[in-house]
């Protein structure tokens, strides 16, 4: 009985000791991260105030913060800040959804059909090699200054990334899983829905992460090229006014949008892929 007691106490002590290591490490990492931010922003501010760099061209953190404050409280030259964010977000999300759905469907169809894949591979390669941002000009000419041209650009940006990954995911699907499903009695359609799609899902979800960023780029560049609202237009206006702190402030708003979306996508991914073994980096968290 005493032996049991000793063992369990020393076990718990060992566990505590093991937990203390990562906790201390996490504290050090966080402290270093904050230190780097302080040094970077402080150095920038200091360099600008001592005119080591010209704040007229490079702004400085306090000016950017003030600019953000003004936008939040008094709105931008185009209207309230949240309205501009909403316009850009709407274009991004619509473009993202359309591009992702098209990419997934085309990827799976071409991944399943060898003949179609062989026929279309050449055109996909050509289309993929075009710098797609340039298409933005065509879209503005053809679809006007409204939402459609930005959505179209976002769709084009997203489609190829998602398509490529979905196609690859289908091609990489485990042959023995497909054979097993066939022998267990699955029809070709059942093989697609219950084996191919789940097998390709981790590939597809990985591409969604990257491509949301691309959708945002598409929407912002579209606004840049010609629009009446949105963060891209705001950046373009501030650039025209030689106001770098406005450009930086808009950039920070965009970054916040992108990070939030990335967080939401990670959450959705974890919900969809519960069957996966946890990766080693996650076990400590």
């Amino acid at each position, binding site marked *: 009985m005493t032996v049991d007691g000793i063992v369990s106490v020393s076990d718990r002590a060992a566990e505590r000791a093991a937990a203390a290591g990562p906790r201390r490490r996490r504290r050090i990492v966080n402290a270093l991260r904050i230190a780097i931010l302080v040094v970077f922003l402080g150095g920038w501010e200091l360099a600008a105030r001592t005119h080591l760099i010209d704040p007229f061209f490079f702004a400085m953190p306090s000016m950017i913060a003030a600019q953000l404050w003004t936008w939040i409280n008094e709105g931008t030259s185009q209207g309230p800040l949240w309205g501009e964010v909403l316009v850009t977000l709407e274009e991004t999300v619509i473009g993202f959804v359309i591009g992702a759905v098209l990419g997934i469907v085309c990827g799976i169809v071409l991944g399943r059909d060898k003949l179609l894949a062989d026929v279309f591979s050449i055109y996909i390669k050509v289309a993929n090699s075009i710098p797609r941002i340039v298409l933005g000009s065509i879209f503005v000419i053809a679809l006007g200054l409204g939402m459609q041209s930005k959505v179209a650009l976002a769709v084009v940006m997203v489609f190829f990334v998602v398509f490529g990954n979905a196609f690859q995911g289908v091609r990489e699907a*485990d042959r*023995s*899983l497909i*054979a*097993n*499903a*066939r*022998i*267990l*009695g*699955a*029809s070709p359609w*059942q093989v697609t829905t*219950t*084996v191919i799609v*789940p*097998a390709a*899902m981790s590939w597809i979800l990985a591409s969604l992460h990257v491509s949301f960023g691309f959708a945002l780029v598409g929407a912002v560049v579209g606004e840049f090229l010609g629009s009446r609202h949105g963060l891209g237009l705001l950046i373009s206006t501030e650039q025209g006014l030689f106001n770098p702190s406005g450009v930086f402030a808009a950039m920070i708003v965009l970054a916040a949008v992108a990070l939030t979306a990335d967080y939401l996508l990670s959450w959705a991914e974890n919900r969809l*892929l*519960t*069957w*996966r*073994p946890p990766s080693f980096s996650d076990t400590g968290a």
Partner: protein
Amino acid sequence: MSALPVEDVPTIELVGVSRRFVTPGGTSLTALRDFDMTVRRGEFVAVVGPTGCGKSTTLSLITGIAAPTTGQVRVMGKPVTGNDPRVGFVFQTDALFPWRNVLRNVAAGPLYRGMPKEKAYAAARDWIARVGLAGFEQHYPHQLSGGMRKRVALAQTFINNPEILLMDEPFSALDVQTRVVMQDELLSIWSSSNASVVFVTHDLEEAIALADRVYVLTAGPATVKAVYDVNLPRPRVTAEIRYEPAFVELSRRIWDDLRDEVRLGAARPAQLAAATRTA
């Protein structure tokens, strides 16, 4: 043949079968040559031969995945059509669906075949208990050991009540102790079914411990070198049967046959193994 009563029609019949592959490089390779095999109803047949000789090709021919270049393959007296619902297959590799838990893996067959959900899950629960995994219904394959995953694979196959069970080195990836346990598990499930089994393995002792008859193949191109009847009494306990004098004597006789082929097989290029796997 039509004169035979139904119960005398062999479940599986391969008559004078040859199978040639063309490799991606364009050269042709013969995997099987003048191959004859008969499996009677409810019989357990093991196929042993050197690695890469074309053992697995026999199974592909029976499922209809591959067609014979010459000769005939008949199942229940009729030529193979492909995708026969009476056939079950246990793979060498892990073929469980990693995104489905144990319950939904085992229920996959009945669900594919259109059984209502509640009924399929009830049957699956029944089979999960029969293979000793009750309580693991909600686990995903990656949370199970290799032996447990094989149990799930057996339940997944047997839930469809296959009349023909094809097994392609199903236990070769397991450690020795687990393998023996799984062999007994297989024998006990099989004895309460009436399935005819073709069990491909490179493990001679496994073949003798399990089968009614053992086909020994030559090094590729494979043909039947000899067929041995295994007259050991059933039910068998595979862990113990291998110490019986009759078992030892039989395994010595078969090994004498097999040894030369293994030596020949080792000298054969690995090309064929690759070609048969992709086919």
